[in-house]
């Protein structure tokens, strides 16, 4: 059996392998290229008008009257902030509780019941959440607290529910990544379950939990259809929780279909602001989770 069999064949295969490697590299750059193309197009469409009218009048102007060439995005920027803060105020306590219960308190059977339910939460289309807001939450707020019902409060609650899956799944990962020896050590020292969570697990999983909150924030900032349905979309800084509010995303979606000329450019400029916010959040989340990976 000695001697070369099919000597050339193997070499040809190897050359094929090099070609395949090259092809895969090209494919692997698809995600990066898409990101790049999106950036180029959004920024390319959105920034000229910002230069034309000045960044200050865009970012700090409080009047949004495109028909009068007034493109102040300040109310929408503040609106996005308010709604996101509200969503976090609701989503984070619920989300972290679920994560802790899932990893520390629930029996295997209960976990098996709760986990799919929460995964299901992530799959429900955002329009369905928005719809639930319209038919249940908005009338409830209007009857109970007054005002139009379409409000910061309604948007915060619905978005708070919508960010739950993100917050839960990433916090669960972070909590599970804490080495079991920490947990055992703490219990061995006589700490109760809750004390262990509070004193040992939370600090150990902190960066992962922060990452989960930041990613949840990204989801809340970026959500569009649900917000548009329940926020009321008034282009004014809301004076109370019950006042209507317009976010950056709703500003785009609300007027995109109809806009032409500079109005459309201004909506792309809105997109640019949103894009920058999201990229900053992404980068922070990436950095915290990278730190987490380095320091186990």
């Amino acid at each position, binding site marked *: 059996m000695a001697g070369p069999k099919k000597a050339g064949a*193997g*070499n040809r*295969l*190897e050359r094929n392998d090099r070609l395949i490697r090259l092809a895969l590299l090209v494919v692997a750059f698809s995600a990066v290229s898409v990101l790049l193309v999106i950036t180029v197009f959004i920024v390319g469409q959105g920034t000229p008008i910002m230069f034309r009218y000045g960044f200050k009048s865009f970012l700090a102007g409080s009047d949004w009257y495109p028909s009068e060439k007034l493109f102040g995005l300040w109310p929408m920027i503040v609106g996005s902030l308010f709604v996101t803060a509200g969503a976090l105020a609701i989503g984070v306590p619920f989300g972290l509780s679920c994560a802790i219960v899932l990893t520390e308190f629930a029996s295997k059977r209960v976990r098996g019941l709760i986990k799919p339910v929460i995964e299901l939460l992530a799959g429900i289309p955002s329009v369905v959440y928005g719809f639930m807001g319209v038919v249940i939450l908005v009338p409830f707020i209007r009857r109970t607290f007054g005002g139009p019902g379409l409000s910061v409060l309604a948007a915060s609650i619905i978005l708070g529910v919508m960010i739950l899956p993100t917050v839960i799944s990433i916090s669960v990962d972070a909590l599970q990544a804490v080495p079991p020896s920490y947990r055992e050590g703490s219990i061995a020292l006589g700490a109760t379950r809750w004390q262990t969570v509070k004193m040992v697990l939370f600090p150990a999983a902190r960066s992962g939990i922060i990452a989960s909150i930041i990613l949840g924030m990204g989801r809340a900032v970026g959500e569009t259809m649900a917000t548009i349905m329940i926020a009321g979309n008034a282009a004014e800084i809301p004076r109370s929780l019950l006042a209507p509010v317009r976010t950056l995303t709703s500003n785009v979606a609300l007027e995109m279909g109809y806009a032409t000329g500079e109005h459309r450019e201004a909506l792309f400029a809105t997109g640019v602001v949103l894009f920058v916010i999201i990229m900053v959040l992404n980068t922070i989340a990436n950095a915290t989770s990278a730190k987490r990976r380095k320091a186990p």
Partner: protein
Amino acid sequence: MSDIAIEIRGFSQYFGQVRKINGLDLDVRRHEILGIIGPARSGKSTFLCALNRLNDLVRGSRHEGAIVVEGRDIYAPDVDVVELRRRLGMVFATPVPLPRSIYENVAFGARRAGVRRRDELDAIVRDSLEKGGLWEEVLDRLESSGQKLSGGQQQRLCLARILAVKPEFILLDEPTSGLDPISTMKIEESLRRLKKDYTIILVTNNTKQAARVADRTAFFLNGGLVEVGPTAKIFTAPDDRRTDDYLRGRFG
């Protein structure tokens, strides 16, 4: 033609900054069973993986020196690695049947080498399983999963699997470390039978196994060869004190 099949000259293997094999010189003779013994992390497995260049798959792998198989340096730039690995078949410490049927496990290598015809494959599978000493036990369930076999059967399946590629050398990396005595015995029997057609290198952490089946035995320590010689000599009158100490269980 001399009876030297593999010559290793001044061979060192690095992974990043770590040197696992240090200036190794060793000859392997045709149609012998060369036993390699030594304590854990003495470079035995790394040595086997250098012979069929599996080390290439590890990040930061580089080497010095030469390994010459049948007159050709296997690290020469024009060497076909795929072809090389077919010539030096390898059995790992833990049996790893692929998640497919017994038949397909054995036929795997032959298919990759381009065998397509069913009757040809059938013959190869049967022949290999017979040589591996497994045919009788599985002939009525060739289509069931290879992972459903017992540990010993799995390891013999792995042996049969490399025979199907028609190698010249068989490299075994502690093939019986997880097996019961009966399975171990069956594998050793197969090896003795296979010797006449193949050159076999057997890494083992069980010195008695080397004593039972190896023609010659090499003792590795800290990534280097301490000594090599006829098995009987190594076990009874080693030249080096460290060999003696190891065999008497003073370390390792």
